[in-house]
């Protein structure tokens, strides 16, 4: 081979070979047919917005515009809610569960059939690596629809002795970090339980929600059952949440907006579930399977560029293995492949927006200023687009901003502990409580720890593992209500009669 030079040395051959590189393996975008302009999906049709406004959505990895998307104004919100209300009363509420299930199954199958299209579009609009949208986002989204389709005709068995009834119009506001998956988490249980929906996708990532609307149209879901109205959270989102005909609000996003929403529903009788921020502790004990713990730590904080509400952003390491673990972790970080999200070999993609990049940059600066020690692997970042190197901080104390505030980026704060009790105390010392990870070979310690962690999800010897049958949600400022599993049906139902 060209790169090989052979030097004869004392009869033995010593070879100096240029390191093996992976050639670019770019997923083709041909499968995606972008329209120039996307309208609102209301009452079963794509319609131009009464607001007359369109906004541009971009690819965060290149900053290139992808399409113009309709922005729902106050009148559009009202139209959508009225369409949903009408559909609820006339077409959906009284449909037998097994009939509703058919539509939900259809959506699930269509997602599978068009999985590549969804994955590529998700990566283009969000910046996440194609391997994640292909292997996680899209299959999990389909799995959620399949799972809840199964519940649609079995609701009375989910709540024995009670009579479950749907609530009405659900306003669903989804975030930009898992645009399609969060739509699935919200739509699937709402549809299965007989509610109708007005969905507002995040303003930076509306495209897969609109493609899903297309799928819903093709699945012949009765008009008005699902409506999709993009727009900014501060306007469209607020109008939607305040609309008097909305019976339930499901929100995934920041704690700040969660608080605003909670205030706005006070006294209205609207049901509310909030899935908000997090600052999860990933706790590694000295007897942990260290090489796999490294993978769990990396997956915990660099999966989806750390833009995950349940990201393991605080790493607690038992002092006796701290040095060994840090060594391994640094070595591992040097093998992370950061860059073009459409390359199948990319591990870490682009940050979703300039705003988010600025927020990460600002918090990282505060970490340096507060005296924490930063490590970043050497890697070339693309010139255009929003990028942030995978980052570790050591010498972090509980009081540092980087140990308290949600960064929502590829930044890990590493702290240490000596005893299990200290680990519990430090891990719970946060206003959040969404998730936690425990790494140890000792089963009894896993149980002891899990009992004491104030977090909605506790992972043992793994991290960021999701399944539609497993409930997900937070404690404290991470929100309330559960999505997934049988628990995920409850926020969409009145449960009448039965046990007090």
């Amino acid at each position, binding site marked *: *081979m060209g*790169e090989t030079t052979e030097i004869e040395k004392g009869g*033995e*051959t010593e*070879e100096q*070979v240029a*390191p*093996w*590189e*992976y*050639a*670019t*393996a770019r997923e083709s975008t041909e499968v995606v047919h972008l329209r120039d302009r996307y309208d609102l999906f209301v009452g079963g049709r794509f319609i131009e917005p009464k607001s007359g406004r369109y906004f541009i959505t971009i690819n965060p990895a290149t900053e290139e515009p992808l399409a113009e998307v309709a922005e729902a104004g106050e009148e559009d919100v009202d139209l959508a809610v009225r369409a949903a209300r009408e559909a609820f009363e006339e077409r959906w509420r009284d449909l037998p569960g097994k009939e509703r299930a058919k539509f939900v199954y259809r959506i699930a199958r269509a997602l599978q059939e068009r999985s590549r299209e969804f994955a590529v579009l998700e990566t283009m609009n969000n910046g996440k690596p194609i*391997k994640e949208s292909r*292997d996680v986002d899209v299959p999990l989204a389909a799995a959620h629809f399949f799972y809840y389709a199964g519940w649609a005709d079995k609701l009375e068995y989910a709540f024995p002795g009670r009579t479950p009834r749907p609530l009405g119009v659900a306003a669903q506001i989804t975030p930009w970090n898992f645009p399609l998956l969060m739509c699935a988490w919200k739509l699937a249980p709402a549809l299965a339980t007989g509610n109708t929906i007005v969905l507002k996708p995040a303003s930076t990532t509306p495209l897969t929600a609109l493609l899903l609307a297309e799928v819903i149209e093709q699945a012949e879901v009765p008009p008005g059952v699902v409506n999709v109205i993009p727009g900014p959270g501060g306007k469209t989102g607020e109008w939607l949440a305040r609309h008097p005909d909305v019976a339930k609000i499901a929100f995934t996003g920041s704690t700040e907006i969660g608080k605003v929403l909670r205030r706005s529903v006070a006294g209205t009788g609207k049901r509310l579930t909030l899935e908000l921020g997090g600052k999860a502790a990933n706790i590694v004990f000295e*007897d*942990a*399977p*260290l*090489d*796999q*713990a490294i*993978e*769990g730590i990396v997956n915990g904080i660099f999966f989806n560029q750390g833009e995950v509400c349940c990201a393991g952003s605080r790493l607690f390491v038992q002092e006796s293995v701290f040095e060994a673990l840090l*060594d391994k972790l640094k070595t591992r970080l040097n*093998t992370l492949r950061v860059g073009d999200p459409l390359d*199948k*070999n990319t591990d870490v993609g682009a940050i979703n927006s300039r705003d988010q990049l600025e927020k990460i940059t600002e918090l990282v600066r505060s970490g340096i200023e507060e005296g924490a020690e930063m490590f970043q692997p050497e890697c070339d970042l693309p010139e255009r687009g929003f990028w942030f190197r995978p980052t570790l901080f050591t010498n972090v104390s509980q009081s540092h901003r980087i140990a308290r505030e949600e960064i929502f980026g590829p930044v890990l704060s590493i702290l240490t502990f000596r005893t299990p009790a200290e680990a519990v105390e430090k891990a719970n010392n946060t206003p959040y409580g969404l998730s936690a990870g425990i790494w140890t*070979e000792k089963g009894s310690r896993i149980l002891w720890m899990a009992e004491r962690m104030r977090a909605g999800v506790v992972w043992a*010897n*793994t991290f960021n593992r999701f399944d539609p049958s497993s409930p997900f949600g937070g404690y404290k400022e991470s929100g309330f209500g559960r999505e997934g599993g049988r628990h995920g049906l409850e926020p969409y139902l009145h449960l009448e009669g039965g046990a007090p």
Partner: protein
Amino acid sequence: MKRGGAAGLRFHSKDAARLMEGTPAVDAVGLEERAASLGKRSIKRESKLRALDLAIRCMDLTTLEGTDTRGKIVAMCAKAVRPDPVDPTIPPVAAVCLYPQLVPVAVGQLKNTGVRVASVAGAFPSGLGPLDARLAEVREVVDMGADEVDIVLNRSLFLDGQYEQAFQELAAAREAAGSTCLKVILEIGELGSYDRVRQASILAMAAGADFIKTSTGKLSKGASPPGALCMMEAAREFLHETGRHVGVKVAGGVRRSKQAIQYLVLLHETLGPEWMTPDLFRIGASSLLNDVLMQIDKERTGRYQGPDYFTID
């Protein structure tokens, strides 16, 4: 070649039990997930050609059949030196691997070719013959001119918890092999858990193995990506602890280029570019070579050739 040899022996048998206890645990779910995720790396075009070339240069072309004859070995040696008779850009393989009795044939055939002769020894594949006879066999293949010896871990002792004895046997084989490259086959398909694979790897490396090798190829369960990854992680740990580089050999069931590339990816992302050489990585295989040649041809021409265009030696 980087060789530990007898001089590289750094541990005493009384350390063996301590070593076993100090070996970190392996989480099967996490390990298998990591191996599977690396298996999804997309290796295309020039990086695929590089990988295929390396797969040949790291190959121990193997025949370990009761029916092996002089003629079979002569033919295999020719194939080892010139895998593709019409294409001189295809490199020779690293070594041929065969039974002791046929070593002199291979030594004669491969003189001055750069292709090494590896022989199994030590009551392959069970490793349960009398110790003296096993050690004598190691000495004998070395005397006959073998460049490398592939022996088997005594799983009977290892699984019985007799680590010290298992270690002593390996250390004795190390001594018997002298400065000849020593590969220790762990037979991971018989060890029952990845924890055991990791422990056996550490035991063999501490006893002075130059390579740790997954399998004999005589079981239906041969090499597996998570098993190999587990051994590579052990080799990385061993380097960190002792500063000594120990090679990894995958063998048993590696028949397709795709598998070979997957192992190279595991190696690349676990042990790094330093290990991407026949000095520290081998693939033991009998039928892989032709598939690699076919894939190289396909990468270059864009077309697949029928199997009759590749010699079957």
